[in-house]
C-alpha cells in the first residue's frame, strides 16, 4: 500500500475521531489500525461513507484471545472494491466483560461473523438480531477457542503418554 494512501485513510479517521487511533502499523503489506473500542461502529460507518475511504465490503471479522493480556481482540478487515485497498481495524475488549455494539446495521454480512465470534470467544454483540451459537452444538457451555479450555475432547481413554510421547 502506498504511503499517501495510508496517510489519507488515517487522516479520514482523525478528521472526525481524533485521538481514537492507538497505533498504526503495516503488517504483511496490510495497514493495521488499533483503535479505542468505544466508537468502533461509528468509525467503520464513517469509513464506509467518506469519499476518500469508501470501505464498503467487510472481508471478515473475527476474535483473537490473548491470555497474557487478559483481553480479546476483535479484528475487522475492510476492503475498498474500487481502489482495491484493504485495511484491518483492531480493538481490544477486557475478558471479564467482552461487550461491543453490533456491526449489523452497517454490514448485514456481520450477522454470521458475529455469531461465530460469540460462539467461539463469548463476545456479546449488543443489538445483534439473533445472537446464538452458529457452528457448535447448542448445549455447549464453553467458548472453545478461549485458551483456558482444552482443545481435546476429555473422554478419550485410549491415549496415554507412553503411546503418544506427551
Amino acid at each position, binding site marked *: 500500500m502506498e504511503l499517501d494512501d495510508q496517510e489519507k485513510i488515517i487522516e479520514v479517521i482523525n478528521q472526525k475521531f481524533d485521538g481514537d487511533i492507538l497505533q498504526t502499523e503495516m503488517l504483511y503489506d496490510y495497514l493495521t489500525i488499533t483503535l479505542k473500542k468505544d466508537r468502533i461502529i461509528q468509525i467503520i460507518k464513517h469509513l464506509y461513507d467518506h469519499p476518500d475511504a469508501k470501505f464498503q465490503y467487510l472481508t471478515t471479522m473475527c476474535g483473537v484471545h490473548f491470555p497474557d493480556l487478559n483481553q480479546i481482540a476483535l479484528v475487522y478487515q475492510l476492503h475498498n472494491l474500487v481502489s482495491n485497498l484493504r485495511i484491518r481495524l483492531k480493538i481490544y475488549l477486557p475478558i471479564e466483560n467482552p461487550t461491543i455494539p453490533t456491526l449489523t446495521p452497517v454490514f448485514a454480512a456481520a450477522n454470521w461473523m458475529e455469531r461465530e465470534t460469540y460462539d467461539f470467544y463469548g463476545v456479546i454483540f449488543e443489538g445483534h438480531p439473533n445472537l446464538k451459537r452458529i*457452528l*457448535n452444538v447448542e448445549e455447549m457451555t464453553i467458548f*472453545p477457542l478461549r485458551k483456558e*479450555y482444552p*482443545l*481435546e*475432547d476429555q*473422554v478419550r481413554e485410549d491415549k496415554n503418554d507412553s503411546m503418544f510421547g506427551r
Partner: protein
Amino acid sequence: METLANGVKIGEKPEGMEGHGFFATSLEKVVGMARKNSIWPLPFATSCCGIEFMATMGAHYDLARFGSERLSFSPRQADLLMVMGTIAKKMGPVLRQVYEQMAEPRWVLSVGACASSGGIFDTYSVLQGIDRIIPVDVYVPGCPPRPEQIIDGVMKIQRLVETESLRRRDSAEYKAMLNSYGIE
C-alpha cells in the same frame, strides 16, 4: 461348495434332513440365509471413507456380489447402517434419529477410524466414536480403509445376520442394551 460347469459356485445349504422331494431344516437357518444375502445398506457417508465406499459399490469391487446392491436411502427399509466418516457432535442427533427410524432387525457397521473412535479428530467438536450414541455391530479400522476391508466388514455383518437367533431382538439383554443408549 458345489461348482457348476460354467464356474458359478453354489452356496452351502443349511444343515437339515433330506429325502426324495423334501428338505427339512429349521426356520431360523432359512431366514438367516435369506437375510444374509439381501442386506439393504443405508450409507451414512460424511467424508473420505464415503469415497472408499463409492469404490466398494463400483464395478471393480462390487458389493452387489454380496446381495447388497440395493442401497436404501430411507432408513425405514434399511437393514444395515453403514457409518462412514467423521461424525461431528452436531451430527450426532441426526445419526441417532436415522438409527431410531430403522426397523428391527437392524445392524450397524462403523467404517474407519473417525466413526469408530474419533480418529485423528480428538477435539471438542467431534464425537469420539459413534458407539457413544448408537450400538455398533462391526468396526472396520483404517484411515480410510480400503474397499477390501469394507467388504470384509460387510461379510462379518453377514455372518452375524446368518447366525442370529430369531428371538434375539426380543430378549431382555437386547432391550437392556438399547436402554443403555436411551433407545426404546
